């Protein structure tokens, strides 16, 4: 399971922040060549990010590079970045499966023979992208996640962006559903007020309840809150252990049907319990030690 509870944006033109990006414990760091970088600085940032990928140790954090959109500098970004072995490319403003096919082909052309295949995370931030979410998620085996970018999306709708997020409810559920159907992860839009910790907490809790597996982040101070929400709680772990115990007991007794507290334990429940336990194990949360 690739852990993407938190995905932290780091401006691709800021050497100090790029050097320190690995210290915050984010599951993924997104080295940004797009919105954080002014047009006249694109060349320098691309060069800097390429060097950073070769030299900076981000520890346990996955390295993701957000390239520029396909109609601007995507081709030159991919050519420069992919041979430096990022774990994934975050593609902005994806609107169709065809966009993914195009990006996948460019990645394949840029990859060195020996390198681990570079994954794709599709950033859906237009109404078209939301409509095409499932097809985008299924377009190529490299696609591992769909991420929602709500700022551009609401601009596209002509809707007012609010802290409550009523205007993006539909997009959120579509992205989550499409990702689940395509068996990839769904990553929620960032919470843009870095000083509002309570707002971030509420927004992240909502995202988790809806089914997102992680959240984009624009500030390192948001990481801990996001992790706290997406980490399995002790109750979650306890429940999952009971589910697995029940199903194993049923199997040992030769029964195909297990029940827990009077409710039937079916395959989706087992899958959910296994995912919780796997996540808890990855995070060292098993046994109530922390």
């Amino acid at each position, binding site marked *: 399971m690739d852990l993407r509870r938190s995905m932290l944006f780091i401006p691709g033109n800021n050497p100090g*922040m790029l*050097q*320190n990006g690995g*210290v*915050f414990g984010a599951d993924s760091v997104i080295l940004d060549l797009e919105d954080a970088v002014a047009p006249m600085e694109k060349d320098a940032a691309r060069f800097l990010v390429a060097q950073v990928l070769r030299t*900076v*140790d981000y520890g346990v954090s996955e390295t993701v590079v957000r390239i520029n959109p396909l109609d601007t500098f995507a081709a030159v970004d991919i050519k420069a970045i992919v041979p430096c072995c990022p774990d994934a490319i975050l593609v902005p403003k994806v609107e169709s499966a065809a966009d993914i096919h195009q990006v996948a082909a460019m990645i394949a052309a840029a990859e060195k023979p020996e390198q681990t295949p570079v994954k794709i995370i599709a950033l859906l931030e237009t109404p078209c992208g939301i409509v095409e979410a499932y097809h985008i998620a299924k377009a190529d085996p490299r696609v591992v996640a769909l991420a929602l970018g709500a700022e551009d999306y609401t601009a596209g709708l002509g809707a007012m962006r609010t802290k409550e997020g009523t205007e993006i409810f539909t997009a959120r559920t579509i992205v989550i559903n499409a990702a689940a159907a395509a068996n990839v992860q769904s990553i929620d839009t960032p919470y843009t007020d870095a000083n509002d910790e309570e707002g971030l907490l509420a927004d992240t809790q909502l995202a988790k309840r809806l089914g997102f597996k992680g959240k984009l982040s624009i*500030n*390192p*101070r948001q990481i*801990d809150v996001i992790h706290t929400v997406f980490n399995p709680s002790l109750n979650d772990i306890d429940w999952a252990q009971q589910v697995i115990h029940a199903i194993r007991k049923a199997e040992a007794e030769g029964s195909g049907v297990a029940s827990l507290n009077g409710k039937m334990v079916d395959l989706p429940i087992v899958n959910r319990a296994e995912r919780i336990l796997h996540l808890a194990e990855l995070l*060292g949360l098993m046994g109530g030690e*922390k």
Partner: protein
Amino acid sequence: MKNAIGREIPETISGIAAIKPFAGAFATVPEMTRQAPKVKTIKPADRKLVDNLVEVFKKIPVTDGMTLSFHHHFRNGDGVVNMVLATAAQLGLKNLTVALSSVFPVHAPIIEHVKNGVVTGLDTNYMSGPVAQAVSKGLFDKPVVLRTHGGRGRGIECGQLKIDVAFIAAPAADEYGNLNGVEGPAACGSLGYAFPDAQYADYVVAVTDYIGEYPLSPISIPQTRVDYVVKVECVGDPKGIVSGTTRITKDPVGLKIAETAAKVIQATGLIKNGFAFQTGAGGASLATAAFVRKMMEKDNVVGSFALGGITGYMVDMLESGLFKKLMDVQGFDLEAIRSLSTNPNHLEIGADFYASPFNAGCAVNQLDVVILGATEMDTDFNVNVVTGSDGVIMGGSGGHADAAAGAKVTIIVANLLRGRLPIIVDKVLTATTPGETIDVLVTERGVAVNPLRADLKEKFLAAGLPVKDIQELKQLAEKIAGAPKAVKTGEKIVAVVEYRDGTIIDVVRQVEG
């Protein structure tokens, strides 16, 4: 000869009376009595208010070779030191020693007074700016004495720093010499660093631009210790005296370090009722305080006191009931001044009460935890807060070594990489605070625990903190930034670094250029 932490100290240093090498943080036991200042009398009709500094100089009289003392609560807004030294120069005085608790950029005119022979000695706890740079290049013929805040109190109290005339920059005074720091246009809060000067100097002169009605109240320094009051047009620039507000850092790396430091404190188990805490006024220190505050609120902990330089943040913790008292030797902002003047639980204390090692118990001894900074630390946990990466003096101990010695747990918070330089080195250029008094280093890339504190290491590991060996952290930093080249210094000793007990912990040598 080598002292107890292996620093090479010359057996004699020209201009320094007695060299006693550092022997260990608590190894030196005093064998002296407190000094007694000159006894004076004043008749009922005598007046203390004097029209100008020239008149005071003539009345005392101030003569060649005297030691004049000053305090630094006006910080970079101070006008009194320059005014007094200009008067000395005008009267043709020579060979004066300036005992100024901290030197700031505003004190640059000292350089000219040294070149003209008016000033030939400097005794201070901290210096930055042009004077520090000039000292590093060999401005003085004899070394500057760098003390700690507690060490200065001790030196004055024990007669090792004999003050002939103390000039007290007083935000408010009455005509009979009662002084406080909380009124007037130059209000600075606590006058704590001037307390020993007022107690032990042969003469005490208050310099003020605000005369209040007799008797002034509250009284920080009483009329019984003040010989003259001089009213001047302006004692300094209020903008340089207080910072207005001190703010928590927004730097993500600084916040990460602060949060880790707070978790370290939590893991020590010391955050419980009666908790006593000192932290600085810098953004990262305040951020640590903010995280500690959350922990105290969550667990309904009421601390006993917070100590040191006081900020509005600490005042807010007092007023919110998170600490019962503040002990204030130096205020940093307007809130600290307001609180000191109105809240009986906000106590004004002197430098000796704060941190002198040679009395019947100073306040730092009651600290549970102190958070301090560093410009360099070595693998023996010795800390440098005096010289920068170029060997130039850019600070001083202040209360660093004092609080480190006193607190149950001393935590250094620092970026593992300061710009392109690793903070951990094999041997610090200048040792300021001995490693035996440092317990933990918290960086953005891990926490190192002094091997002397195996008990803490166990607690931190149990709490899931990212504990690393200090050598491992050093190698990690060097992997990113490379190992810095050693700074080349000349032979001339430009400053001696005195430990709080009066022994010499290190010397600073001249830089080129």
